[in-house]
């Protein structure tokens, strides 16, 4: 245990925590916006898989990381249109539709990978970008200011999402539509358009999350996410539908993940139970959810399709 409490190991663990938190944070922020508008999207994991694969494939063929991120974003948007049409215009049950998106994403990314790539080949990873001066600060410089642009983007989107939800007319519409769509409709706010836009933003974020994941790892394999998208959905509940809370959840998740990895590497956790320890983050989330469940209030219209008749 003493090996763990050395400055260098702690700093490295913190850096890993923030890196690991990035895709969770992006996906969960997007899901937050969607859920605040009353739409549950359980398909996040599928969208992440698809966007991760296409980002990976883009890097493999062109070597261009930025093009890869753009492609991932587009994949997210395309899946957003599909999900929005299914749930908003056809008023399909959100839970089942989301599972459908997940299964499609899982299967299609797997198929494409086997057909187009076959065996996993490493690709260049996202470079870290040092922020002048801040990057050289002791202790905090490395974990906070020597990260990739994707990580800066993810954390930068937290306050932006807060502003979007709380300070803009669009955000007001989103919150109204998620709580009482009839009331919003009676004031001339288009429930359909608002939810459509919220879903598109949510899926764009999920696309970026897929890109962040694959470009941080520099490799793709079938079912790369292993349920990360579902954890992201849980983090929205954990964060009580507030961007800062969601960020707290993603960070906690990153810290526990990074610590478990570090302890495994240092041999603090015996190999025999290492798989068990891998469950720690999930157990933590469930525990936190149980504790929080009594206090938090979900958007009242969450999962409820809207129609006038």
């Amino acid at each position, binding site marked *: 245990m003493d090996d763990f409490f050395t400055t260098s190991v702690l700093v490295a663990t913190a850096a890993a925590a923030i890196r690991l938190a990035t895709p969770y944070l992006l996906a969960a922020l997007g899901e937050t916006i969607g859920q605040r508008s009353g739409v549950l999207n359980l398909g996040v994991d599928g969208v992440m898989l698809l966007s991760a694969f296409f980002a990976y494939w883009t890097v493999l063929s062109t070597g261009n990381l930025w093009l890869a991120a753009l492609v991932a974003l587009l994949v997210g948007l395309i899946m957003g249109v599909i999900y929005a049409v299914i749930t908003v215009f056809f008023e399909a049950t959100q839970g089942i539709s989301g599972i459908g998106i997940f299964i499609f994403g899982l299967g299609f990314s797997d198929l494409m990978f086997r057909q187009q790539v076959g065996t996993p080949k490493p690709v260049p990873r996202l470079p870290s970008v040092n922020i002048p001066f801040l990057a050289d600060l002791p202790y905090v410089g490395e974990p906070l200011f020597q990260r990739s642009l994707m990580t800066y983007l993810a954390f930068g989107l937290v306050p932006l999402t807060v502003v979007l939800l709380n*300070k*803009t*007319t*669009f*955000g*007001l*519409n989103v*919150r*109204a539509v998620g*709580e*009482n769509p*009839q*009331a*919003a*409709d*009676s*004031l*001339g*706010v*288009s429930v359909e358009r608002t939810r459509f836009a919220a879903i598109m933003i949510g899926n764009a974020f999920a696309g970026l999350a897929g890109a962040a994941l694959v470009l941080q790892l520099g490799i793709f394999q079938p079912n790369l996410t292993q349920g990360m998208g579902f954890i992201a959905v849980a983090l929205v509940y954990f964060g009580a539908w507030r961007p800062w809370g969601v960020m707290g959840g993603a960070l906690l998740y990153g810290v526990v993940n990074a610590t478990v990895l570090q302890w495994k590497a240092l041999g603090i956790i015996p190999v025999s139970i290492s798989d068990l320890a891998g469950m720690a983050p999930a157990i933590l989330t469930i525990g936190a959810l149980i504790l929080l469940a009594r206090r938090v*209030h979900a958007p*009242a219209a969450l999962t409820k399709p809207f129609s*006038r*008749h």
Partner: protein
Amino acid sequence: MTSTSNNLLEMRGITKRFPGVLANDQIDFDVRYGEVHTLLGENGAGKSTLVKILFGLYQADEGQFLLRGKPVHIASPAEAIAARIGMIHQHFMLVPTLTVAENVALGLASSRRPFTDLETVSARIREISEEHGLAVDPSVIISHLSVGERQRVEIIKALYREVELLVLDEPTAVLTPNEVDDLFVILRRMADNGQGLIFISHKLHEVMALSDRITVLRNGRVVGATTPAETDRQKLAEMMVGRTVRLTPELPPAQTAESRLVLSNLTINGDAETIAVNNLSLELQAGEILGVAGVSGNGQRELAEAIAGLRPLESGAMTLNDKDVSLASTRDRRNLGLGYIPEERIPDGAVAEFSVSENLILVDHAASTFLDKGMFDEQAIADHSEKMVEDFAIKTPSIKTPTSSLSGGNIQKVILARELAARPTVLLACQPTRGVDIGAAEYIHTRLIEQRALGTATILISEDLDEVLGLSDRIAVMYEGQIVAIVPRQDAERSQIGLLMAGATD
């Protein structure tokens, strides 16, 4: 089509069909500048449908309308608002988690796009509040407001949008008498300013007090038009129902004997762990109706829930037919003879998705009469349901119809039928006729009086003072969790009870 008069609104030949229902049948209706035009009619007469068409929530199958003399087509609420039509709906259209200012700003263009401009909105709300005497703080979250304050926010929403034609669909259903008076002052002033108002209410004294003109609908058709000067409550009721009605029921002398329900020193907590009912004692005799009058929120709901077994007692005791039931389950209380008509028809009294028949046997579904070798005896259930539907004059296409598609009055009759079929010795009736039309209310009152003659002890909790005064042998006035007075029927005076309800002590 051109306009011959200078009416604000003219609706011509409006027809609207729903599957199996002709909700509006060739309706002609108009509103002049500066008047309150009331729409009156029983539950399901088509009042809400007509105004929803006006507001763009439904599209008429036939007919046209003219606004300010010009033909218009309104396809959505957004278009209605643009045409300066406002609507206060039968149910609040507020987002409970947002502030007053946010609710008002919703759907409006902001001067600081894409950001909201709540400061400007709040300032304007304060101006409107002052101008119209509508005190409300723009920064408060809606869920912290009382129903009266919420109604004020609805009015402010309309005033903020400078509506010229305001529709009010049963705006007083949830208000206390004082709040209704305040509302009417504001509505009258709006009309005097030249705005046109469409008012919908089941309460005839309100209709008489506020209207300039009254149009009566029955089964989707206009059956008459009149003015308060030409009519009275009795005539209005008859126009609505199409037959003679008794507005004030006759009550034969009570023949009380043994005590049925004894409440001793009850203290009951409210939702927020505050004391809702404070050291309350009461004794209820067989064959009497005890009316509980009071402004909502003075502990009536908590008292009712405690009697029904849905809310624990903090202290005190309760006996039902001489058995201590302080800790008894709802089922035990029912078996001891308690019938319960809850305040909220849906979801407390009936399951919306269930059929009429299922709701009729809801609590007694395990009774041997409905079972055959442990399975439902469909024939017995159907026979029972058909009989109930007939006995209680429940208007429903069939016993298999989902309860949610019945009108409020008919849902209430389903609940009443089920509760009375169990032959209760004590009946707890909470707001039994709220939002129910006159015909159905008269029917429910008749059944309650019938039960009284059979020896049932009834507690009638109601915010409708006329109902309490008309039906009760004794009137208990509740104020701040206590019974401040019990007045026998012959001594009860409307004004005195009203004062007691408001907290005046004599």
